[in-house]
């Protein structure tokens, strides 16, 4: 068991509580950086995909995990980010600028949309955003001047500082693009969490009434959360569309939003780690399943993989409703207490719910 002897408040404020923790993440970063030299382009593509999902997932996590607002409409904002980015690039803007701007524009539009949505709680917000995701499909068709309608767009070439980022030519560059975005978004996210705004998010989640009494402007906080969340989702969407190479109105279908939500819950709601763990499950598990069913002859039962995927998700949720990261926290506690941990220590004590219809 490690003890933190704190001698300064900065130890709580810092990103890493101690050297051990810092070196752990530093090591992880090094592994991530050398990864393209180690694995082949197929797996690199998959890792890139996981990172892209994680970026979008961080966006939803901010809203759902931190602020407690469940959105099933983030596919719409991913689409917005993607189309904005591409349209900006069409004007000749360099990719990086267009990419960042796309995030910002998505965020601003998200915040504007959030204003009427603020009055909504719980399932109402969820379904309203779901409606938004469904509408997005039609709106993309209606706005075919900017979106290419049902015929969609082929992703333009991406150049960053004179390097062509093309997933079929140099997958490593794409990987670094996704990795860089994920790192930056994670850092911004972390910073928020240790700032007043991040705590205001949590306050709004846990009790709007007392958040108000503490001077938190609930409406504004929710708007900002929604905006930021959309901005991150927009970045994720831009990456996802560009990475796919082509996209149209069906690309950012509401099923994407549903998967995004599943992702953050399976990963562990409210934890940054959760977005990444969830992305691994949602984005990579189907691939893993299909690789493993190759040995059975994959076409023996149509839809088998999706069916099994559903069953595995059910198993995940049953096994650990707090998500993978929640489970990891328990394992870590066990390890830290070793050998004093009792086996039944982590048995779930009975829990009971109260209505969420009171606000």
């Amino acid at each position, binding site marked *: 068991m490690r003890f933190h002897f704190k001698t300064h408040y900065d130890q709580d404020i810092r990103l890493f509580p101690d050297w051990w923790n810092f070196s752990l993440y530093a090591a992880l970063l090094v592994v991530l950086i050398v990864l393209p030299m180690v694995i082949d382009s197929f797996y690199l593509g998959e890792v890139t995909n996981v990172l892209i999902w994680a970026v979008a997932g961080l966006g939803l996590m901010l809203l759902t995990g931190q602020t407690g607002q469940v959105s099933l409409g983030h596919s719409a904002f991913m689409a917005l980010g993607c189309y904005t980015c591409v349209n900006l690039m069409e004007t000749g803007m360099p990719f990086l600028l267009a990419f960042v701007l796309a995030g910002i524009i998505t965020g601003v539009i998200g915040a504007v949309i959030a204003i009427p949505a603020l009055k909504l709680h719980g399932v109402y917000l969820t379904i309203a955003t779901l409606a938004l995701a469904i509408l997005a499909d039609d709106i993309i068709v209606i706005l075919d001047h900017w979106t290419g309608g049902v015929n969609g767009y082929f992703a333009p070439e991406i150049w960053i500082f004179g390097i062509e980022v093309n997933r079929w030519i140099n997958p490593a560059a794409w990987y670094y693009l996704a990795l860089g975005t994920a790192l930056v978004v994670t850092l911004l996210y972390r910073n928020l969490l240790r700032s007043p705004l991040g705590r205001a998010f949590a306050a709004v989640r846990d009790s709007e009434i007392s958040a108000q009494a503490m001077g938190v402007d609930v409406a504004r906080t929710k708007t900002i959360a929604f905006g930021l969340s959309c901005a991150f989702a927009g970045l994720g969407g831009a990456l996802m569309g560009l990475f796919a190479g082509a996209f149209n109105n069906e690309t950012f279908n509401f099923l994407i939003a549903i998967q995004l939500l599943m992702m953050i819950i399976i990963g562990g709601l409210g934890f940054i780690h959760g977005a990444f763990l969830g992305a691994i499950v949602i984005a990579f598990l189907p691939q893993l399943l299909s690789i493993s069913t190759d040995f059975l002859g994959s076409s023996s039962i149509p839809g088998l993989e999706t069916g099994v995927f559903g069953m595995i998700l059910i198993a995940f949720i049953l096994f650990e409703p707090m998500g993978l990261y929640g489970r990891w926290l328990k394992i870590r*506690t066990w390890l830290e*207490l070793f050998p004093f*941990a*009792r086996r*039944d*220590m*982590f048995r779930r*004590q*009975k829990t*009971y719910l109260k*209505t969420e*219809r*009171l606000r």
Partner: protein
Amino acid sequence: MSALLEVRNLETFYGPIMAIRGVSLEVHKGQVVTVLGANGAGKTTLLKTISGIMDPEKGQIVFEGEEIQGREPHQIVRRGVVQVPEGREVFPLLTVEENLSLGAYTRSDRAEIARDRDLVYSYFPILKDRRQQEAGTLSGGQQQMLAIGRGLMLRPKIMLLDEPSLGLSPLLTQEIFEILKRLNVDEGVTMMLVEQNAAVALDLADTGYVMELGRIVMADTAEKLSASEDIQSFYLGHANEGARGERRWKKRKTWR
């Protein structure tokens, strides 16, 4: 004489935190037993474990000669073990009347239920006035009355009362304890009472237990406890404003 309710070596955990550390106690039929203790002592946890809301890790709870630990709470309630929970826990979106009729969920004798409801209304006339109000909009004290009234509707054999006077006006606190006394004496309802208002609790009770950090540290008849110096100073605030008087430091308790 065998006890109505007997708790033996009970241990209860919240995950890794041990909240009840081997508690044993007995409640005899017709008795009022009070459990005193500072906050965090584990009183609420003890009551919740008895009523099945929480699962004990070890130990037995014997009610009317049968072990009931680890059962589903509703089965325990049906045997007549009824808890009035800490913090009211009314059904906020149902009306006062519906809340009360849920108290009679396990019963089917309509006439008797109606009689009991009138009884509760006679104890707490304000509830009768507010029959159709949603319970969630009642004032704190009104909700507490409702919680107690709802508990009475269950016709318990033993009532586990977790701070019944919480948030009640002095007048009502007094009335509540009179009601409890009547129930105990006239109807023979056994009670286990957790109460911060130790003076009234010991006044009503036959025996008392004192809990600290999940353990029973003292057990005796109510009179003896009332007379004990520690109890007087820590729980009754006797002897010139308790142990501290106008001093602001704390005296150590001697039973540890």
